[in-house]
């Protein structure tokens, strides 16, 4: 069974259609790169998956469980949405780290708050928090930030901040990790360190959806590539296939414009 199934997703803002008839599957352990020009709906699609936008039509299923169904208001209740979100992790273009907390606290905060809902929280509080801290440290170490756990976001470079943000998303153990142009806000010399971390995650078979403008990266790291234009999926297939031998005219035009500019 597919890890993620998206069926006929549609989203409009007023009379503007941003997403139309979006359907695709993603298998466990696979990574999907979404490419397309600005305004093609890539980011909106990710935001719909993370319940930051409510689609007007369609369904979202994870491991066969219906998380969202536009026709079933019961799936859209605030209290339930909060838990369902945790199937997805989100890494934002602008990091969105919490400035008042250290790198480690950024990673552990949500987990600590969630742990308060556990029945044994009061009894085992110390032990639970200790475990969360350990996990957080391990994640920062994995991101190559072991020495930075007590730094505040403003004391870190953009690349380091984004790696903290990735650790923060991983801490909630999401089924599917989403990246929204994770390197677009970075100086060119800092993109490498972030892409390296994402490549590492792909090698560990993390299920991922990556919205990106880095074509070479998409080709080399992702299993699948999905090209969007004007709110619809134009082409989808194996990464190398789509980027090196696109079948659709619109994909060809987009990629050749990209090749000219880079």
């Amino acid at each position, binding site marked *: 069974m597919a890890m993620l199934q998206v069926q006929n997703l549609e989203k409009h803002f007023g009379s503007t259609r941003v997403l139309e008839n979006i359907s695709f599957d993603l298998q466990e352990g696979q990574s999907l790169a979404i490419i397309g020009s600005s305004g093609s709906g890539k980011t909106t699609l990710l935001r719909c998956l993370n319940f930051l936008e409510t689609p007007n039509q369609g369904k979202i299923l994870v491991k066969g469980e219906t998380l969202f169904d536009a026709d079933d208001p019961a799936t859209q209740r605030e209290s339930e949405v909060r838990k369902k979100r945790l199937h997805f992790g989100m890494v934002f273009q602008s990091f969105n780290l919490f400035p008042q907390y250290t790198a480690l606290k950024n990673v552990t905060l949500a987990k600590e708050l969630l742990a308060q809902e556990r029945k044994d929280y009061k009894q085992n509080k110390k032990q639970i928090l200790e475990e969360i801290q350990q996990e957080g440290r391990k994640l920062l170490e994995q991101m190559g930030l072991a020495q930075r756990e007590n730094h505040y*976001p403003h004391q870190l470079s953009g690349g380091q901040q984004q790696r903290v943000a990735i650790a923060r998303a991983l801490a909630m153990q999401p089924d599917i990790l989403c990246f929204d142009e994770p390197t677009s806000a970075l100086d060119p010399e800092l993109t490498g360190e972030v892409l390296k971390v994402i490549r590492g995650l792909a090698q560990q078979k993390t299920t991922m959806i990556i919205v990106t403008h880095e074509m070479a990266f998409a080709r080399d790291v992702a299993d699948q590539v999905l090209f969007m234009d004007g709110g619809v999926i134009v082409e989808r297939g194996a990464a190398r296939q789509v980027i090196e031998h696109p079948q659709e005219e619109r994909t060809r035009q987009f990629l050749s414009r990209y090749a000219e500019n880079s």
Partner: protein
Amino acid sequence: MFLTVIGALNEGFLQTLKLFGVTLLGALPLGLVVMFGSICGFTPLRWLTRTVVWIIRGTPLMLQLIIIFYIPGKLLDASPWPSGEDGRFMAACVAFIINYACYFSEIYRGGVQGVPVGQQEAGQVLGMTKRQIFFHITLLQMVKRIVPPMSNEIITLVKDTSITRIISMQEIIWAGYAFLKTSHGYSGLLWPLFFTGVYYLIFSGLLTLLFGWIEKKLGYFR
């Protein structure tokens, strides 16, 4: 003579401080309520709140004070305020709390709206509740943003208390002025009036230090 003057000024300044304290206690939370009204999704309430804020900010506090102190008595035959200094003090508190709540509400609004939406979204995707997001993420960032404008407003409040003299509340300027007229066996004594400035200076100096300390405390993040 000096001790007599200082004693009288101290008494006046105590009244000034009481008004200052009560105004803050009332206006700081009331400002939050007014702010929620002015960003409320329910349009009639939003417009009503914004109109009130416009009127309060658009007219002199001194005029508001006169209206609140005298007009109810004119309309109701009997003044709702107790007679004497207590009544004057209560009317002053009401006028000041309403006035300052409106100013604070706008500062709060700026603080809340200045926290990037991305902060809230980051909390949401991590499964936090709205409450957790407000208390663990938004609040401190908002407080940090509003400290400089709030310190400005609060220092203005210290000196605005002097306009309660218009309804003869016995604050420190009133106490100093009394020596110029006839009181405590003196008349035509000018320096106590100017000496009240020292009280204001010292008090606002202490507040400046306090706010500087708060700003420094919150300076560990950006």
